[in-house]
């Protein structure tokens, strides 16, 4: 499909019309036309260039949680609502992301969440796109505000699986693969990424140590995040000596199974400005897809959905990878972060392992990657992960990231994918300075 995604064509098309109007207005110089132009500009602004902001954000701690999935979700929702300084009645819709509600006996979560926020008349829905559910949902919520359909939304991701145990969780997750070819033939998620790691290592001469460096860096960042699942400083040796899960990946190459929820309040710029509270702006959004099965990808060392989503988001935001001050990327396994940072354009193909080794992605490096600790250390409650990345950007840009704050950051990127990257979404955010 050569059609540029909806967030590119539209602004361009209307900008053209807009400047045509401007031109006519200048030529004719009559009051009515100017009036028309101003009115049109206002309408255009609201309708297609409507900026969308994140006004509030909150997360539970990620980890093994004892509360029910609904309570976990509600705790994050309450935090986000209070962080935005709004009341629940200002929320016009609830966008939820979740994959395995079945595991805690609750699907159809939006009505239960909304009812317990005291706004049972507010409609909602759940969006699922495997481990990328959070960002795919976030994009739908974003599009609804961008289109002018809503002024204020709750966008909330939640997951609870740890109580089912490692083997059953592994099994559930394998249902996110192309099951006929992958899960059904014995591949788990660590297994699928292990096959990608082997392909990458073989093609680009990377080593198990190169992968381990990603884990070491993300655990280091996670130490600074009080809500992270895993607070444990580790060394390359620790990673290499940890038990093999699916060769060549070892336990410390893998993110944990986590419970948790993250929530954001999305709103129009007008709504955000009126609030008088700190907010951040979404300046780019992109989605992509890849062949569902790893076997069907011509090059197993790159993820086409990431490349497509990033290209769209960069184009929409009018920025390049060099403009990104930090990124939260999908590091479900160490190999994933290596592939991600290449697919996102931070490093040339095959060069990421070297860059990570040199510290380029560390908190004080040239492009800090996963200051939150990433999925690897912060944790990976799969329905919440994509939203949690946005929470990190919000916290970074509004002075709530404490010791892990990336200095002087103005532009940040989030990248989250489903399964082995069959689906992906990328968002780009801008810090908004308030006087």
């Amino acid at each position, binding site marked *: 499909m050569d059609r540029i995604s909806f967030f590119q064509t539209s602004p361009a098309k209307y900008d053209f019309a807009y400047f045509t109007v401007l031109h006519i207005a200048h030529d004719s110089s009559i009051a009515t036309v100017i009036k028309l132009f101003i009115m049109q500009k206002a309408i255009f602004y609201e309708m297609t260039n409507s900026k969308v902001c994140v006004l509030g954000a909150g997360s539970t701690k990620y980890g093994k949680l004892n509360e029910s999935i609904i309570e976990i979700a509600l705790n994050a929702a309450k935090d986000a609502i209070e962080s935005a300084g709004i009341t629940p009645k200002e929320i016009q819709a609830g966008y939820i992301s979740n994959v395995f509600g079945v595991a805690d006996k609750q699907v159809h979560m939006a009505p239960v969440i909304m009812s317990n926020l005291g706004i049972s008349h507010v409609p909602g829905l759940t969006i699922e796109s495997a481990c990328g559910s959070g960002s795919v949902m976030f994009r739908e919520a974003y599009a609804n505000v961008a289109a002018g359909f809503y002024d204020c939304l709750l966008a909330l991701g939640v997951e609870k699986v740890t109580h089912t145990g490692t083997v059953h969780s592994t099994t559930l997750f394998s249902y996110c693969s192309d099951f006929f070819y992958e899960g059904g033939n*014995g591949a788990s998620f660590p297994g699928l990424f292990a096959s990608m790691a082997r392909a990458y290592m073989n093609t680009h001469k990377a080593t198990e140590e190169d992968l381990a460096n990603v884990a070491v860096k993300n655990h280091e960042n996670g130490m600074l995040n009080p809500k992270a699942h895993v607070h444990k400083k580790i060394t390359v040796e620790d990673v290499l000596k940890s038990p093999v*899960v699916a060769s060549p990946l070892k336990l410390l190459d893998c993110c944990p199974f986590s419970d948790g929820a993250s929530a954001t309040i999305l709103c129009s710029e007008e709504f955000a400005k009126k609030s008088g509270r700190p907010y951040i702006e979404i300046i780019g959004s992109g989605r992509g897809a890849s062949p569902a099965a790893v076997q069907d990808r011509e090059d197993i060392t790159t993820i086409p959905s990431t490349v497509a989503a990033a290209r769209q988001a960069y184009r929409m935001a009018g920025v390049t990878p060099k403009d990104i001050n930090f990124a939260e990327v999908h590091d479900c396994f160490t190999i994933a972060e290596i592939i991600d940072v290449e697919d996102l354009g931070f490093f040339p193909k095959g060069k990421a392992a070297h860059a990570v080794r040199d510290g380029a992605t560390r908190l004080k490096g040239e492009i800090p990657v996963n200051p939150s600790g990433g999925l690897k250390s912060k944790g990976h409650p799969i329905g919440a992960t994509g939203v949690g990345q946005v929470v990190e950007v919000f916290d970074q840009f509004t002075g709530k990231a404490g010791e892990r704050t990336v200095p002087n950051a103005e532009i940040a990127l989030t990248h989250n994918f489903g399964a082995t990257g069959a689906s992906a979404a990328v968002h780009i955010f801008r810090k908004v300075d308030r006087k």
Partner: protein
Amino acid sequence: MMEKLSAKESTHQKFIEAANRKKILAHKCSKCGHLMLETVLFCEKCSGSKFEHTELEGAGTVVTYTIQAVAPEGFEDAGSYAWVVFKIDNSQLRASGFLPGIKTPADLPIRTRVRVAGFDPKHGLMLQK
């Protein structure tokens, strides 16, 4: 309660039946000649939906793989096995399968030759070296 599907109704079942004959079932677009696995319903190149059935010899070379130390449910009793992506001979197509008896990477260098041994209801597309 439900009857077994005939291959007429199910592309999965057709694929499985071919695997049991040690073949990989594919089809060729009648319009542009592009070759796809049987499960794909419209041509990836030209969107055509008429195909000529093609049975590929179930043999090829390992592209990548993993040895699953922690196996999902249904595979706990499978011993040490590899999940393998292999390129099918005489085509650009790849398929994936279950290869038992693999303990260390030394057992399965990239480009090792493998072939389809059948389809197991529990473990899927069975491979052998």
